[in-house]
């Protein structure tokens, strides 16, 4: 007797009056949920396979489908949730580590939603971005405060390597391998059109994308996949990935089935072999080792590229960041615990790390206390969901943000958290050609450009409202923020006052 302990959380509801048996939903679902029953002469669904990605709903020509949360439930229990119980069933059956993808979905406080933005009234005027210049150009890199002049009293303008962005938003690291060629191409093309940067992630740089190198950040991670001198020289900046918000303290694993011919070539590893990124870099066991890698990369690239060190937001983040700032890094990227991933052990994703808002505020404060904030730029990520989050991040102290989940959503991602299965129906997190062909890079690029331009408009409106007409005056300007419903301790860490104060 087969006993099925785990029932689907979702149901595929089909309006049979509308369904015309066109079988598009069957064709489009890589999970095999929808099928045609010859006897009944009707389309049916096996919801146990459904990941709730909405692909079938979105392509149904007669709007016959919807996915709803199943009313099937366990006996009500405030302690034991549906997930707690079914995950125990899963582990009891398999003995395995639970896997999931994308960011932490649990109900932790989202501090962005407990922070409010200021606007001018009476004592100073708001500025209309439609009538006055409203500047968003940003530089990342070390700021030099000692100035030198030549014999004609001209400034000697040589600086440490800088990145110039038209708006302080970049696409975060997502490797080719974890996401598709077309997804990468969309990001690269959009970064070029927007005058910003995308990040290769740890999967190397496909030879077709070297044309975008002016807008590329190349990543060096613990697996060192695809790292060679030309790769390092191709990027405008190099990022050392020490950690990731979705899975602090552990490495990565790209299953063999995702290592196709092209991915294998780009990563410089055998086709079909799983790509394991170790938890630590095996040449970095301490801060002084990181310094060596930073300077090794600088030497290799003739001190022409800023070095970014990306870390996951963890408990002692202030001291860690201060150490990184003193080891030669030009930029620190901090990834909060709601950041996304192509695959992570579920318990780690959901329980390890701290929110980016608190981490960012602590790091910015710490670097200022130590008088070295100008030595390093700060990039915040994990998660930035809207232009308002961008404003709040900048006012807390970020110089720029990385967005990744938001970018994937712009490409069609529906946050079904099944990237690790490799069968993404939206052609993003998959290496199956028939699936990745669904993502048209031209359209993807356009959607990303639209998204960032829309945010840019909103950012300009909010800046104008605050009476700020250039983005640098927003950076670290915490007086523009107020907390709502936060404890004194939370306000203290965020360095902001409560609403009404």
């Amino acid at each position, binding site marked *: 007797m087969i006993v099925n302990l785990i029932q689907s959380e979702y149901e595929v509801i089909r309006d049979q009056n509308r369904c015309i048996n066109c079988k598009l939903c069957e064709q489009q679902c890589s999970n095999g949920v929808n099928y045609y029953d010859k006897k009944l002469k009707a389309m049916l669904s096996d919801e146990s396979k459904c990941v709730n990605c909405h692909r079938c709903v979105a392509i149904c020509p007669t709007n016959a489908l919807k996915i709803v949360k199943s009313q099937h439930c366990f006996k009500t229990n405030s302690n034991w949730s549906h997930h707690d119980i079914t995950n125990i069933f899963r582990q009891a059956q398999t003995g395995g580590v639970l896997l999931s993808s994308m960011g932490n979905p649990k109900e932790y406080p989202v501090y962005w939603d407990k922070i409010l933005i200021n606007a*001018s009234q009476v*004592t*100073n*005027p708001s*500025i209309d971005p439609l009538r*006055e*210049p409203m*500047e968003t*150009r940003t*530089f990342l890199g070390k*700021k*030099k*405060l*000692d*100035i030198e002049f030549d014999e004609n009293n*001209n*400034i000697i*303008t040589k*600086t440490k390597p*800088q990145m110039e962005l038209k708006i302080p938003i970049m696409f975060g690291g997502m490797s080719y391998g974890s996401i598709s060629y077309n997804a990468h191409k969309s990001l690269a093309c959009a970064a070029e059109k927007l005058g910003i940067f995308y990040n290769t992630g740890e999967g190397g740089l496909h030879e077709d994308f070297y044309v975008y190198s002016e807008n590329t950040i190349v990543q060096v991670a613990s697996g060192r996949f695809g790292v060679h001198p030309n790769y390092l020289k191709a990027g405008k900046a190099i990022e050392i990935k020490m950690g990731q918000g979705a899975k602090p303290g552990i490495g990565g694993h790209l299953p063999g089935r995702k290592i196709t011919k092209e991915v294998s070539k780009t990563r410089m590893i055998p086709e079909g072999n799983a790509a394991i990124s170790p938890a630590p870099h095996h040449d970095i066991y301490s801060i002084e080792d990181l310094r060596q890698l930073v300077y090794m990369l600088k030497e290799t690239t003739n001190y022409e590229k800023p070095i970014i060190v990306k870390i996951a937001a963890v408990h002692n983040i202030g001291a860690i960041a201060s150490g990184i700032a003193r080891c030669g890094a030009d930029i620190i990227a901090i990834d909060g615990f709601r950041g996304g991933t192509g695959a992570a052990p579920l318990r780690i994703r959901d329980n390890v790390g701290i929110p980016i808002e608190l981490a960012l505020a602590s790091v910015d404060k710490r670097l*200022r206390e130590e*008088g070295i*904030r*100008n030595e390093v730029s700060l990039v915040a990520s994990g998660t930035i969901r809207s232009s308002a989050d961008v404003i709040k991040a900048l006012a807390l102290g970020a110089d720029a943000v990385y967005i990744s989940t938001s970018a994937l959503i712009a490409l069609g991602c529906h946050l079904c958290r099944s990237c690790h299965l490799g069968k993404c129906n939206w052609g993003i997190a998959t290496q199956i050609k028939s699936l990745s062909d669904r993502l048209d890079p031209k359209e993807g690029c356009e959607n990303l450009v639209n998204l960032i331009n829309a945010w840019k408009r909103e950012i300009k409106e909010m800046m104008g409202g*605050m*009476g*700020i*007409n*250039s983005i*640098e*005056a*927003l*950076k*670290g*300007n*915490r*007086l*523009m923020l107020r907390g709502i419903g936060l404890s004194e301790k939370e306000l203290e860490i965020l360095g902001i006052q409560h609403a009404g104060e």
Partner: protein
Amino acid sequence: MDRIKKEGEIRIPSGCAISGIFSKQGNRFSGQTAIDSIRVMHNRSNGLGGGFAGYGIYPEYKDYYAFHIFYMDSIAKKECMDFLEAHFDMINLSKIPTRKIPSITDEPMIWRYFLSPLPTKLAESQLEEDEYVARCTISVNSKIKGAFIVSSGKNMGVFKAQGYPEDVGDFYKLDEYRGYSWTAHGRYPTNTPGWWGGAHPFSLLNYSVVHNGEISSYDANRRYIEMFGYKCTLQTDTEVITYMIDFLNRKKKIDLKRVAHILAAPFWSTIDRMNDQQKQEYKYLRNNYESFLVTGPFSIIVSYENGLMALNDRLKLRSLVVGEKDDMVYMASEEEAIRVVAPKLDSIYFPKGGEPYIVELEKEV
């Protein structure tokens, strides 16, 4: 009832009137001129703050640091005196003479000292003399409760109070002082400052600043400049602007014109049209000194030992006008404040947003 918070404990936005008068030949004239100029802009202040800065007023002590200090009580005075005695040779000390004016009340003890850094202490600190004095000033203002150093430069002094500026001028008997450069300020704060420290000008060493506006970049500027040993104890725009000018001009040796172009930087659209050398320079300044950019409305007059600089925000959201007559230069929020003391001018000019107007002494005084 809860005590109303004093300025420094809260941030108070203000509207204001400013005026500056300067003799390029270094001819000294009475502070009465500055009083007469600011008086006509009475409606731009609301009686909650006024003040003056005079340069060239202490020629007999011009080699010594002139400290003007407010004391709230005798405990603060004792603590501050102990500090000063531990760090300076005291050349002279006295109460600053005042006359009773019905509208000026609640005055603190107001003292003046002429000081010279103790050579041993100075050597021990391994600091330049100016830096030593600046640090002592910031230290008193941030650490000694109830003591506030109003000004700490040489051959100059700041006189300020809670009241209308013309009354403040009378109170301090400024008609009896003569200087080659005067600035005046009338304040329109939205809350009561609660004490005299928040009145303007704000001063450190030889710099003093009068300001009209409310800058939207305040906290970005404050949090940045505090990295370099400054403490913004008053939470006013003028204070943070003064510190930024001190840092850039005195410490980093950047000329005032460039300092002005850091504080009120040209727009990128302007920079992009410049020639290559200029483009590189402005890009350099905007990038490396990004956190010194001041946004929001302001007009300021910066005084220093050799001159005056008038500067508006990038969009010119506050009025500011400059007139010249022979060797005299007048700067004010309104033209009438100039015409009242100099009815016939050789020229009148409205500086553009972000365009500094700098005048300097043409001979040593």
